[in-house]
């Protein structure tokens, strides 16, 4: 297995590495059910959350994960930091390095920012979302949730529905599902699909037609600004064609898994009756997030220097 120190995108990972992360995450979800939900494994390590974009769930999820492993956590968000005074990403990075941090969890509006950090820092870099590019821990926690609901993933079918063009969640998620041998469908209006066809992915515009084939439906958030950009004529038209509502759920397989990366726009991409149905794994995704991020942090920081890394 290749030596790894960072988690930048899912294509860094072999299928075996993914299986390892998921198995380790399963052990950590047991830790999260204990009366004392904390283990001493990363005592003395420091993890920085470097967030240049607003985020509640991902940042909190990483923070909880690191704290459950006994690491020290520093949160750095743009509104409370020197970025407001115009400090560059590089200077911020070098400042962190000088403080001696072991891992940097970074979210940045510019695609590729985590790769730049990797060049400047000795610390392990974890990509928590860069521009429209990648969000690997989201993809891993989605696989964890899917596996929990569906068992073996090989040969199962998942449809990503909605704003695939602007979604790093979809971009990493599609790669991860493909790597596990899943059939992946991308369903969206043509204006919300990437101009270059996604490798190994069947694209389509007709949600109702593919519905009966899917073991899982991954609903993506629709930002209302997209309508102003002219990506679709009106929210009403979008919801009529692509919203997951009770009528469409009626055409789905009885055990279909409904997922959403949050935060949901209830009444836009997903109707309340679908979001609250027993099929929905949306809160399970959040719970999986902590266990998966614990696994990734432990695998990147838990072993010795110079040893083989797992993720």
């Amino acid at each position: 297995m290749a030596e790894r120190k960072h988690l930048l995108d899912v294509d860094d990972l072999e299928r075996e590495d993914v299986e390892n992360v998921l198995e380790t995450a399963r052990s950590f979800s047991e830790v999260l059910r204990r009366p004392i939900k904390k283990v001493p494994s990363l005592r003395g390590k420091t993890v920085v959350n470097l967030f240049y974009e607003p985020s509640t769930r991902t940042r909190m999820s990483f923070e909880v994960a690191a704290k459950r492993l006994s690491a020290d956590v520093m949160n750095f968000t743009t509104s409370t930091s020197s970025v407001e005074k115009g400090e560059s990403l590089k200077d911020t990075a070098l400042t962190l390095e000088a403080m001696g941090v072991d891992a940097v969890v970074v979210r940045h509006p510019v695609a590729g920012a985590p790769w730049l950090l990797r060049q400047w820092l000795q610390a392990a870099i974890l990509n928590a979302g860069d521009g429209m590019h990648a969000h690997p821990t989201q993809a891993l926690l989605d696989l964890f949730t899917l596996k929990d609901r569906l068992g073996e993933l090989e040969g199962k079918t998942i449809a990503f529905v909605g704003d695939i063009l602007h979604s790093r969640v979809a971009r990493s998620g599609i790669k991860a599902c493909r790597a596990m041998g899943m059939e992946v469908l991308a369903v969206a209006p043509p204006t919300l699909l990437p101009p270059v066809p996604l490798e190994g992915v069947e694209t389509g515009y007709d949600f109702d037609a593919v519905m009966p084939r899917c073991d899982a439906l991954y609903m993506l958030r629709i930002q209302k600004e997209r309508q102003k950009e002219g990506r679709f004529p009106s929210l009403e038209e979008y919801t009529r064609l692509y919203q997951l509502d009770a009528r469409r759920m009626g055409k789905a397989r009885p055990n279909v898994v409904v997922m959403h990366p949050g935060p949901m726009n209830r009444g836009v991409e997903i109707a309340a009756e679908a979001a609250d149905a027993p099929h929905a794994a949306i809160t399970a995704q959040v719970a999986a997030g902590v266990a998966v991020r614990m696994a990734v942090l432990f695998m990147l920081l838990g072993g010795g220097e110079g040893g083989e890394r797992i993720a």
Partner: protein
Amino acid sequence: MAFRERVKVMEEPDIRRAIQRISHEIVERNKGAEDVVVVGIRTRGVPLSIRVAEAVSRIEGVEVPVGRLDITLYRDDLHTMSQPVVRETHLPGDIEGKNVVIVDDVLYTGRSVRAALDAIIDFGRPATIQLAVLVDRGHRELPIRADYVGKNVPTSSSEKVRVALREVDGEDGVFIGYDED
């Protein structure tokens, strides 16, 4: 690195008798088996703990709960391990006020037992924690001793002790040997 055995210090019947004796000692010390919980340290402590729990159950006629413990997250040598693998810990019910008997195959430096103590205490506050091992080979690095010992096997620190159990290895036996590089 392959293990090259030199002597077999315990045969299958020796292991069976040692477990039988340890089980009687557990019952004697705890005045029965009412509040006894047996917990094996992964990997080979687990089948041993099941054997001990079954023997105690037979002696006392009560069901003895068994658990398994993964101590990876509590190790003090994580930084020297290249690829630590974490497995699930499972304790049967609440251990508060119970007499927890930790079972392991070999007692050596005592560091695994220290990790196991910390792990167990994170689950609650047992009345007592006791330690049963199949083999005590000496060379302690911490102030830890076993309450129940199958066999004391004096070794030099350059030697290795290998415990084979039929559940994992297909046969029962304890061997002294060394690692071939």
